[in-house]
């Protein structure tokens, strides 16, 4: 499930958008004990100036991203295009499930939830 209204184009500045992953949707609800799903989120939005510059409290902008946004502003039709809106900070999740031998397994996965997005 994504954030309502996102639809087609990127819309607005580069930021985190809600994305809920439901294990029931992929048919895993019988063997996944917990959680039922989790908020994975995703990044979307414009990375042109001034969005490519750091917002209040956001992740520090990479000089390269600012340079690229400047080049794109100066020559939008030529060159490499604007920087990309990508995850800048991620956090883990743990999944509790039954495996094929009916053992109860707890697996820990790093970098599964997007906490912050940034232009890179």
């Amino acid at each position, binding site marked *: 499930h994504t954030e309502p209204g996102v639809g087609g184009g990127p819309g607005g500045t580069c930021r985190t958008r809600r994305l809920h992953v439901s294990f029931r949707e*992929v*048919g*895993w609800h*019988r*063997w996944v*004990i*917990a959680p039922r799903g989790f908020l994975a989120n995703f990044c979307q939005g414009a990375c042109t100036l001034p969005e490519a510059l750091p917002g209040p409290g956001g992740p520090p902008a990479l000089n390269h991203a600012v340079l690229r946004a400047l080049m794109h502003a100066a020559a939008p039709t030529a060159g490499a295009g604007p920087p990309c809106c990508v995850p800048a900070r991620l*956090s*883990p*999740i*743990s*999944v*509790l*499930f*039954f*495996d*094929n*031998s*009916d*053992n*109860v*397994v*707890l*697996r*820990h*996965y*790093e970098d599964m*939830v997007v906490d912050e997005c940034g232009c890179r």
Partner: protein
Amino acid sequence: ARAPAPSDPASALLQALGLHEAPQGVPTLRPVPPVMWRLFRRRDPQEARAGYPLRPCHVEELGVAGNIVRHIPDSGVLSRPLEPARTSGPCPKWTVAFDLSGVEPAERPTRARLELRLEAANEDTRGWELSVALWAEAEHPGPELLRVPVPPGLPLRADLLGAAVAANASVPRTLRLALALHGGAATACPRLAEASLLLVTLDPRLCPPPRSRR
């Protein structure tokens, strides 16, 4: 691991989670052991935000490195004949077997804790000791690997890492142990009601070594 791109999204997600396949059919639903619930809640990021930061690839509650914890019930308990209550002579020996075929060769064990629930008619397990040996294929137990006292009224726990389970090596597909009780003042031998193995492993493919500080 660079595997060929799976065709459907569910397979892609499975592969991303380091699982070869979704368990087939409906698992035999059984109560989730309290220790597993506790470990799951302990890893819940919401709790982490409440003030005790989580170290990646570390099982805080058990104090060891690891990113996979398995609670493996004894696969022999159903086939073990119920022992008659014995009032004299040595107590019966038990064999327990744990199916570790789901553990990948790349995974390294960092904790292997045997847990037994013994039932003694009069809870008097003073002086009892449990010996653990590998059950060799030749139907004879191997040399005694360790011996632990039987605590009264509590589940008996024995750490097998470095004894029955080699550290820094792949685990066997099946771990079969010979258990025996020694000593004790009780007149009736306790009965083995439940046996399980709590296995913590570290998968180096999902847990890169910590980067040295720049």
